[in-house]
């Protein structure tokens, strides 16, 4: 539902409608979409906007989510802005194509309304779907509320195009996607200026200088492709600050890769991503009234994970409670795992531990390479490569 609350820039919208409103202002070039069960309200809201002439996006009603992402790859590679929306089983079905989009360095934008995975089939909100694809090479930004859904859609687009990686803007299924909240909308012209034109350097429809997209790269080259992608992904954290700054200038809203709430003097802290951060803030407020030194750390950027910022934010907290709305079967839950990883660098550990990536794409590893790791001082980069050219 959508209605005007006053004559200025305030509206009351569901998360899905806010995402559609942001899409209307972006006016994407191509949107391949599919109504998987569970369906999000984003695409039908936006389709009506196109039908009413408020946007002139080419909507392609594809026959599956696999084809939705495949068509998005085709359209984005062609040199246009391609976006889609999905959730749950839909993300599972497109999961083959997600690393392809990232590997081809195509800044596709996807709005996700998170839902549980089957079986048993459920359709309601949890984070299993986005967590399942957390290593697919996509930027992942979690939203607490409808305002953040709207704002992050623009921020993610700018970021994705800057670093040439695809991005997911993640809202909680039903809790955010179907709940009406007040939000502030920007002027169309302000949005247009903020997102700018999409002018990729390499694109498929360049007939003067034709390119081959998606080649075969065997063990002699594959690793280097991945290294470039790893560096681009790590580079997100360095690029996002400037975009947040620019966004604050046009919106007055100040964002960061995480949000610290009552954390300065907190002895105990909750760590959470998504809409539960809102509920947790109320819980923190009530405990603070009882003079409990509690706080909250809200994770916004989950991929790439901002380890340093999180270590800094939590370094003085004595007791940490990490909330995961997902499971990692046979392992510990992903957010908990990442928080533990973030804290390792400030624990007085007896261990010296170093990460080595080796053998990508079939690159050979030899006995001497293995022996050499013990000569490494294990200083410098947290991740090092064996066998990279």
């Amino acid at each position: 539902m959508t209605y005007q609350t006053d004559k200025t820039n305030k509206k009351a919208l569901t998360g899905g409608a806010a995402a559609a409103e942001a899409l209307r202002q972006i006016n994407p070039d191509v949107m391949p979409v599919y109504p998987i069960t569970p369906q999000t309200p984003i695409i039908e809201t936006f389709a009506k906007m196109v039908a009413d002439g408020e946007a002139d996006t080419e909507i392609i009603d594809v026959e599956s989510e696999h084809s939705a992402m495949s068509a998005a790859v085709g359209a984005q590679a062609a040199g246009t802005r391609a976006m889609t929306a999905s959730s749950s089983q839909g993300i599972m079905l497109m999961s083959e194509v997600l690393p392809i989009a990232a590997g081809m360095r195509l800044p596709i934008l996807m709005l996700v309304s998170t839902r549980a995975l089957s079986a048993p089939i459920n359709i309601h909100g949890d984070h299993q779907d986005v967590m399942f694809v957390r290593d697919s090479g996509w930027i992942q930004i979690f939203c607490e509320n409808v305002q953040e859904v709207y704002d992050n859609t623009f921020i993610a687009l700018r970021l994705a195009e800057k670093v040439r990686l695809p991005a997911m803007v993640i809202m909680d299924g039903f809790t955010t996607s179907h709940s009406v909240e007040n939000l502030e909308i920007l002027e169309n012209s302000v949005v247009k200026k903020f997102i700018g034109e999409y002018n990729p350097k390499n694109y498929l429809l360049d007939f003067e200088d034709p390119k081959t997209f998606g080649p075969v790269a065997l063990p002699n080259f594959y690793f280097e492709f991945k290294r470039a992608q790893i560096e681009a992904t790590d580079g997100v954290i360095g690029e996002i600050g400037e975009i947040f700054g620019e966004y604050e200038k046009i919106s007055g809203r100040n964002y960061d890769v995480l949000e610290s709430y009552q954390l300065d003097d907190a002895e105990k802290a909750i760590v959470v991503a998504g809409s539960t951060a809102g509920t947790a803030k109320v819980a923190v407020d009530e405990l603070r009234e009882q003079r409990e030194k509690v706080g909250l750390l809200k994770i916004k950027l989950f991929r790439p994970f901002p380890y340093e910022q999180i270590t800094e934010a939590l370094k003085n907290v004595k007791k940490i409670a990490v909330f995961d709305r997902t499971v990692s079967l046979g392992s510990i839950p992903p957010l908990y795992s990442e928080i533990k990883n973030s804290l390792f660098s400030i624990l007085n550990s007896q261990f010296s531990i170093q990460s080595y990536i080796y053998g990508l794409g079939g690159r050979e590893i030899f006995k001497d390479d293995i022996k050499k790791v013990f000569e490494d001082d294990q200083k410098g980069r947290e991740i090092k490569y064996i066998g990279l050219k």
Partner: protein
Amino acid sequence: MNKNLAQKFAPGHSTCAGCGIPAIVRTVLDATADPVVVVNVTGCFEVTSTLYPYTSWKVPYIHSAFENGGATAAGIDGAIKTLRKRGKISKEKRIQVVVFAGDGGTYDIGLQSLSGALERGHDFIYVCYDNEAYMNTGGQRSGATPYGADTETTPAGKMSFGKKEKRKDLMSIVIAHHLKYAAQANAAYLDDLKMKAKKAFEIEGPRFLLVLQPCTNLWKFPTSQYVNIGRLATETNFWPLWEYFDGKYKINWATENPKPLEEFLKTQGRFKHLFKSGGEKIIDEMQKEIDENWGKLVKLVDV
């Protein structure tokens, strides 16, 4: 080789000796002067033409996955439509989106993606080079593999005569999508293929070409023989050359006295087991099916 033919697809690719795919691709692409974007799905042709840091492609090319040729083309078509609508490319400029896919990527894993793209009416040509099995992975049966063929996953043996199922009638499936033009062609009849490709390029909307591609590896024949064996496929009515245009069917090559199917079968190792005792029955069944299919096709033309 003829330099004109290598303007879009260069020499130096690594397809097998005696492979007809490059001839199919060059013949098709040579049939238009419009700018072309090539979509390729995972398979023999993709791995032999794009080995990084080299590429055989002198036109824009994209490969994404195995089963998404139709959807990838749909996305590019959507991009072209938007760019045209928004005045970023000229409304008069025709851009041809051409998919090349094998039978595995078309009959089987990519059928849904193809069906969706045909049904939505995207402006693209889909060319299936049909070598009747999964050859990039070494020769497993596909929905295009003929009855009786020996493949890695339908091996002939004491208890088996090879593939037990008939091939899928892909042309009928495609035509059921109400597209304007679909044609069956053969790598051994390049003039016929060129005529069909030219016709296809002039039409708007989805168009489909199914091209027989005799494969020396799977079919097991000497590399010098693909044209002769391709010709036998048509001369025995195993692979008639025909086209469908706007509701009408036309046979492009026919003889009053088709050769017995046996003449086609005996040239290939994949049917070798049928020439041992007990194989006559299978060959008879195959001949019967070929005759029936030909009869059905002739009826469609008469209508």
